[in-house]
């Protein structure tokens, strides 16, 4: 199967001399839900910009579904849908026109474009707002409008650059459902996000980019398996004693009803519960102190520095 995206030794040096990408290589398989993560300024948006032609590369090779962008950029672009980080539509135009016009730029006849625009505006809950000037839409609606616009030509590869930034929890969850459905139907998705729980929930494979270099590229499962330590927070039913100790575990009493317990790789959480029972501490709930991917991300990015 031809990979959805192949990047080989991609380099980008800006006019001022700043090297945003230092020869990165990456492959995303067809049907994947792929996370491209990194701190601000790491090179994620530059990479995406090169793929969709908004940034001119300095060197390297990019191919979308086997089509090299240097040989047939128009052919490659037909397979790409892009949802950028910033709102990039005319705020004075109406959502319906924005989506239909985008279809027109891909050569789609108006009747079909209108049909597709209706389909995606309905699916993304914007049909009632189709004739409202887009500046009147909420932030979440504007993001969904950009998704509808990116999908109107049915791209095989959808690239989303922080699609849920500034979107409320409920809306984010519904966008996750929509994207998962889209992925199950065969669209390859590349996602960049600062919400790491989002990447962990949605993506199967991941690359972490830092200072223009790929510092990690593996499956989400393998990456999380490498996490050596997790910190859990336990909420107690009754007031806790002043000192709580469980053999083999680091325990910190946060307040009269909350404990933080470190669990190293190879230790079992059952042992923690056994220790808590022994100390007659009843637990009402527990959770990770930080998202697991967040722990790993911070470690990798700090390690690279």
């Amino acid at each position: 199967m031809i990979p959805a995206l192949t990047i080989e030794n991609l380099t980008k040096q800006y006019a001022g001399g700043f090297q945003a990408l230092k020869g990165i290589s990456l492959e995303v398989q067809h049907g994947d839900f792929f996370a491209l993560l990194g701190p601000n300024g790491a090179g994620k948006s530059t990479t995406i910009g090169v793929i969709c032609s908004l940034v001119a590369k300095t060197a390297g090779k990019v191919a979308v579904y086997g089509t090299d962008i240097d040989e047939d950029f128009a052919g490659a672009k037909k397979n790409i849908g892009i949802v950028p980080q910033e709102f990039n539509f005319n705020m004075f135009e109406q959502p319906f026109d924005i989506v239909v016009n985008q279809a027109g730029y891909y050569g789609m006849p108006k009747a079909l474009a209108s049909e597709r625009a209706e389909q995606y505006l309905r699916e993304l809950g914007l049909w009632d707002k189709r004739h409202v000037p887009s500046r009147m839409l909420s932030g979440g609606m504007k993001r969904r409008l950009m998704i509808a616009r990116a999908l109107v030509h049915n791209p095989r590869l959808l690239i989303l650059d922080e699609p849920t930034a500034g979107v409320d929890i409920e809306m984010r969850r519904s966008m996750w459902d929509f994207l998962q459905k889209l992925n199950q139907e065969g669209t390859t998705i590349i996602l960049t996000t600062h919400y790491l729980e989002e990447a962990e929930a949605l993506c199967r494979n991941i690359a972490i980019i830092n200072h223009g270099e790929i510092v990690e590229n593996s499956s989400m499962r393998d990456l999380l398996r490498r996490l050596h330590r997790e910190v859990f927070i336990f909420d107690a039913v009754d007031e806790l004693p002043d000192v709580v100790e469980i053999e083999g575990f680091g325990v910190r009493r946060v307040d009269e009803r909350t404990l933080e317990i470190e669990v190293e790789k190879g230790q079992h959480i059952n042992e923690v519960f056994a220790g808590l029972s022994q100390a007659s501490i009843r637990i009402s709930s527990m959770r990770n102190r930080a998202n697991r991917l967040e722990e790993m991300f911070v470690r990798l990015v700090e390690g690279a520095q």
Partner: protein
Amino acid sequence: MNFQEQWVALVTILRKEIKRYLRIWTQTLLPSAITMSLYFVIFGSLIGSRIGDMGGFTYMQFVVPGLIMMAIVTNSYSNVVSSFFGSKFNHSVEELLVSPTPNYIILLGYVIGGVSRGLLVAVIVTLVSLFFTDLHMHSFAVVVIIVLMTSILFALAGFINAVYANNFDDISIIPTFVLTPLIYLGGVFYSMDLLPDFWAAVSKLNPLVYVVNAFRYGVLGVSDVSLSVAFGMITVFTVVAWCYSMHLLNTGKRLRQ
């Protein structure tokens, strides 16, 4: 993209452009009608009656072709410069840049959009001028060709300005400090015969001289410059502007990082 897909893309850009300037017609179409009416009243009727004949015609008849051409030039230019810079400013130009639409279709779409506004305003101004004077058409073919060539040339110039502009000031500097002086010094209000030899020679570097005179020939049958030279010069300017605009798009200068 095959031919049909390119045609759809072109029509889409054009439809968007026309819809844009019709939506804001009070800013795009009405001002020219009012300004030209004032020119007709002040220069044509009030001052013109004291100036007397020029080139064998009443002063009003003499200035009308120049004023129509002035409206075409300013509108085709300002349509493209404001629309393309606007789309650069709000980043909606990226909608086009990420699509497979070829660069020449993008340029053609914006240029035809500018031409269509120039032509629409020309019709409006011509209708207004009929309230003040009778217009006789010496050569319809010359009028049509020169109007099309001129609006294409200045739409391209507007495109180049838009690509280089960094802010809204930059899209008004050229029209104010370059285009307007060239129009006023291009023989709209006077015949080149009135100029001393030196300034008449200098005026021949001004593309507006050829545009105004060729159009005046089409309407009145008189011109200060040879028609073939005028067509030749406008063709050269247009080809250069087209090639440079394509170069800007192909290299992504100020459009792509």
